[in-house]
């Protein structure tokens, strides 16, 4: 194995560097060499064994891998790849923060330069990523859009079509909202805690919640952003509970924020009066759903989402299908469905 001997060489090199550093005379140049070694060595060690020429290389470009949802998505993709390692090669890249749009654009540019065969992308911004996706397509790369749908108008103005494989967030939120409405009476006060203000999926979820609440005649007294975060959502929920003591439900655009809203409801001593609805079905809310402390959430099958995109890209590469949008399932999760 070439890689293994390289690792040994590298370790030896670093050890030498450290020894040189310890002899005080040559500290500065030694530190320089050590640094250089690290810079050169780390990427080389991380390098994968070269693949055969006939296997297509698929790149999965994610949003933040610090986010549980995308982590689940990544793990699903990796497992899919392990089971079918003979069929394709997989590269996974993820940005640090979900809002780090420029970083994601740079990743796609790198992938174009590396001449991958297909890019499956969850864009961090539905408009800003269109241009670089167009460049990829012009370079002959198959591009499939997952999770966060690229803006239809911007796509049209660039004269391209990129197939979207993913769930309808609005429909999912509507499902949860409708389920909640059955526990309420028309005219009841409810509040929405939104995601980051400009996030497409956050906006879709908000619209879905609003649709459900309006259809059943509920009174939306407040709708504010919790920035996808537990602590921020807690602060907002606590404030809304105070200014609207008659509040009957809080609809949160993700489960992390539902945890924050739950803490606020508990602190206000209203656990039995205020229903909470979330989105994403993360592991941490499973017990809470069973106990009824969170009424409902929505599962958009994050673990399968990237797989749908990958399989679709492979089909396109094989020429088995013509690119078109493909909707993936969303399911309502409640104490009853968990039983």
């Amino acid at each position, binding site marked *: 194995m070439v890689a293994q001997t390289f690792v040994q060489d590298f370790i030896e090199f670093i050890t030498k560097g450290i020894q040189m550093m310890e002899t005080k005379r040559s500290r500065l140049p030694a530190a320089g060499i050590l640094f250089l070694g690290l810079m050169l060595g780390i990427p080389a060690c991380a390098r994968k064994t070269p693949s055969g020429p006939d296997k297509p290389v698929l790149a999965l470009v994610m949003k933040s*891998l*610090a*986010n*549980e949802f995308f*982590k689940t998505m990544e793990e699903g993709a990796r497992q899919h790849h392990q089971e079918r390692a003979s069929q394709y090669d997989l590269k996974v890249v993820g940005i640090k923060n979900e809002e780090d749009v420029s970083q994601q654009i740079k990743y796609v540019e790198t992938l174009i330069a590396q001449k991958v065969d297909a890019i499956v992308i969850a864009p961090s911004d539905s408009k800003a990523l269109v241009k670089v996706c167009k460049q990829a397509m012009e370079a002959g790369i198959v591009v499939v859009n997952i999770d966060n749908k690229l803006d239809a108008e911007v796509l049209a103005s660039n004269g391209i079509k990129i197939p979207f494989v993913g769930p309808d967030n609005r429909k999912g939120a509507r499902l949860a909202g409708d389920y909640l409405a059955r526990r309420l009476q028309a005219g009841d006060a409810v509040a929405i805690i939104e995601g980051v*203000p400009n996030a497409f999926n956050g906006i879709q979820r908000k619209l879905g919640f609003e649709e459900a609440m309006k259809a059943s005649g509920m009174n939306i007294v*407040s709708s*504010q*952003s919790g920035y996808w*975060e*537990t*602590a921020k959502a*807690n*602060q*907002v929920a*606590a*404030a*809304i*509970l*105070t*200014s*609207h*003591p008659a509040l009957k439900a809080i609809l949160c655009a993700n*489960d*992390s924020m539902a*945890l*924050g809203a739950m*803490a*606020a409801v508990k*602190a*206000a001593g209203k656990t039995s009066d205020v229903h909470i609805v979330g989105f994403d079905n*993360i*592991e*941490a*809310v*499973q*017990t*809470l759903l069973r106990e009824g402390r969170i009424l409902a959430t929505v599962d958009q099958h994050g673990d399968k989402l990237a797989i749908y995109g990958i399989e679709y890209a492979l089909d396109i590469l094989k020429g088995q299908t013509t690119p078109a949008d493909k909707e993936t399932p969303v399911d309502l999760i409640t104490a009853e469905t968990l039983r």
Partner: protein
Amino acid sequence: MKRFSWKLPVWLTDYLGMAGALAILLAVFGFTAENFFSRSTFLIIADQVPDITILAVGMTFVLIIAGIDLSVGSVMGLSGTVVGALLVNAGQPVWLAVMAGVVVGFGCGLLNGLVTVRWSLPSFIVTLGMMEIARGAALRVTQSRTIYIPGYLDFITETRLLGISLPFLLAVGIVLLAQLVLSRTVFGRYMVAVGTNEEAVRLSGINPRPIKLVVFALSGLLAGLASIIQTARYQANPNNGQGVELQVIAAVVIGGTSLMGGRGSVISTFFGVLIISVLETGLAQANAQESTKRLITGAVIVAAVILDYYRQRIRHGKAG
């Protein structure tokens, strides 16, 4: 001792200035937000501030010695995930998990201090590195997943003395203790001296290194302590505390602590935390738009610092 006797009234006027600003803010929200003057508003604020206050105490000390600690949010996140992982994934007893969380925080702070002092590096870049390291470790510990802690830590948020929660009492206790350390102990005087002129301290025969080391370690320790309160309320989420460092620095600076070092007060920091918390709670209760919230918060921070500039001038005028 005689020097002290004229200093106290100046302090008092300082506090009165902060309290006045807070009162104005409260009055404004009293008119604009529904049900603002209610018991529950104040309970909410008392629930929101303890973790930020505890972090801000550590940050006050760090700023006084002319350093900065950008890692507090991440370290708090990491400590919290350690607590969660030990409690839920490893089934360890509560006392052990809580201890481990605090120790992890302390360790991160100690490392910040050691690296800063050993190689005489700017703490800005050292703690920026630690910010990334601790966040990475937090994600590693939890596999990027929120750990739900079923009830083990409820005693922390639910214990109340005379209606005041345990975390709030703890935070106030830490503020008072830290103020005593700052203004009544030799160590406190040394901190101010190091922040004013480190070279002069060294030349007068005092080694500033141990002082700096202790301050950074303390900041880490307090981040560990704050993480226990955060985790008890919000579960062990590896993304907890993201961006909190800036909020904490803003609170400390609003309290009149100088970013240049050598000047600061822990009690004023506490007022700074209260001002930010009242502002955020009030804006949410007034149902303000997202853009409005940010515009106003930013303006208040800048206004507070300008106010502090004039307060300093008046004070120096008096003294000179």
